[in-house]
């Protein structure tokens, strides 16, 4: 089944397969990945595409995730366009190389269908694995549909390989909830895809002798790390431009923060990933009760588009951040809630809600209950500083 996409077509794909399609169309050179649930179908699809001759790439059957990212780093240094994918324990195993990849400024793109971390072992979805990669210097996208996964991978290569950015990029989405569920996806023509994200990365060894991965003494190390700070600032600027250019070429737009009914809301809820569709239903229900509720979906997580979030939250009373991960030992235990609260300069109150841990089901009815709970208690003292762990048996919830 050799398919070369000469023009737009419609397909039924899971987020995993959509990512694989995009990577294949982007003329990836080297793929190195180690199997882990729920990422396996990405690399299986890519392997099939290589076997059919659809994609001309070297597929390295590495013996661990650590070696997967190491091989991809080596290939990227040599000038190849690379791809890898992992999740949960695999992401943890390759952790030291995450820092090295961004320190060496390599435009690697990695897909992470998020999954809960051991122990106890869980193959089901939550965001704890991606939260552990926060400070690695990678650009991190959260997508919420298969179409968005396909589109964001295309944008990610262009962003990562941009001369002023040169930072590795993660495109992450909910494992199982999205990686294995099928949605209609518009596939663009391969020519258009490559035209949008041409292969501008030439590697480091083209010009001859060079030492990569040197030892930096205290006299130099800080400056190299600061370069990454500045690159992240550039990435924030460029991500927006690239998204706009994508809209111009392909007609689909996402922005860095998606909003729903926030023009006149008093209380906003912020989420990432596939829970967005449930949130919109809950908001509609609350609105029909007369409550002024709005929703935000964070798409670009690192660098954090805090200015945009601040603008949206101007004049709002409460921001409820729903996290699918836990920062143990903190009063505000949701990592996303923590970060937004610390980075915001506006006086809005933040309420941290932790839900969906280990893929504990969260329906739009649950979210509606949370909205009512927040609306009822928002003025009680100490309410906003206390994290609501929603859905745990044994933890009191009045709502």
């Amino acid at each position, binding site marked *: 089944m050799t398919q070369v996409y000469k023009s737009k077509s419609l397909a039924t794909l899971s987020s995993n397969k959509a990512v694989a399609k995009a990577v294949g169309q982007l003329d990836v050179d080297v793929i190195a990945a180690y199997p882990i649930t729920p990422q396996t179908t990405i690399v299986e699809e890519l392997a099939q595409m290589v076997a059919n001759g659809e994609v001309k790439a070297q597929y390295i059957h590495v013996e661990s995730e650590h070696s997967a990212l190491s091989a991809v780093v080596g290939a990227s240094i040599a000038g190849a366009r690379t791809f890898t994918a992992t999740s949960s324990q695999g992401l943890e195993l390759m952790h030291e190389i995450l820092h090295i990849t961004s*320190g*060496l*400024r390599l435009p690697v793109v990695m897909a992470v269908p998020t999954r809960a971390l051991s122990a106890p072992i869980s193959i089901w979805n939550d965001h704890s694995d991606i939260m552990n990669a926060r400070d690695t210097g990678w650009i991190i996208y959260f997508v919420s549909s298969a179409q968005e996964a396909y589109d964001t991978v295309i944008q990610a290569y262009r962003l990562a390989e941009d001369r002023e950015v*040169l930072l590795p990029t993660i495109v992450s989405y909910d494992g199982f909830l999205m990686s294995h569920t099928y949605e209609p996806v518009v596939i663009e023509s391969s020519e258009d895809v490559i035209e949008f994200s041409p292969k501008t990365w030439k590697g*480091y060894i083209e010009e001859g*002798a*060079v*030492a*990569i*991965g*040197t030892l*930096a003494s205290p*006299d*130099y190390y800080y*400056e*190299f790390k*600061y*370069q990454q700070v*500045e690159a992240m600032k550039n990435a924030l600027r460029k991500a927006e431009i690239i998204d706009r250019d994508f809209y111009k070429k392909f007609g689909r737009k996402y922005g860095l923060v998606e909003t729903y009914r926030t023009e006149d809301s008093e209380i906003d809820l912020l989420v990432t990933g596939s829970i967005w569709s449930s949130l919109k239903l809950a908001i509609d229900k609350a609105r029909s009760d007369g409550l002024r509720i709005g929703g935000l979906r964070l798409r670009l997580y690192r660098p954090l588009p805090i200015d945009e979030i601040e603008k949206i939250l101007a004049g709002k009373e409460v921001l409820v951040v729903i996290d699918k991960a836990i920062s143990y030992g903190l009063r505000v235990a949701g990592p996303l809630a923590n970060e937004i609260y610390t980075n915001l300069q506006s006086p809005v109150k933040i309420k941290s809600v932790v839900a969906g841990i280990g893929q504990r089901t969260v329906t739009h009815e649950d979210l509606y209950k949370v909205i009512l709970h927040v609306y009822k208690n928002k003025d009680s003292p100490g309410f906003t500083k206390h994290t609501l762990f929603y859905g745990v048996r044994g933890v009191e919830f009045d709502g």
Partner: protein
Amino acid sequence: MKSRESLPSWYELPIGGISRPNITPESKAGWRFEKPVIDNEKCIRCRLCFLYCPDAAIVESDEKYTTKTGKTYNVSYKINYYFCKGCGICAEECPVKAITMVPEV
């Protein structure tokens, strides 16, 4: 000793700590307490000292040399004292003991 303030700024440095071999490293002469001296008369141009030196501190050149006994060689060896650490491997391995280690004054 350069002060840290006079070193390049973050925007002047190459990204990612990449370095190229076009900057001469600092001299290692201060490491020595004795240095090798080659006796061109005794040297039989076996090439061993040149190949053994861990610091590439022995330089081979196409300089012709005729010994006092009339033997002509087409190559000669010189020590690069900028890089020589005075380890003594060359003197130890020379098959004709043409290299002697003399104290570094």
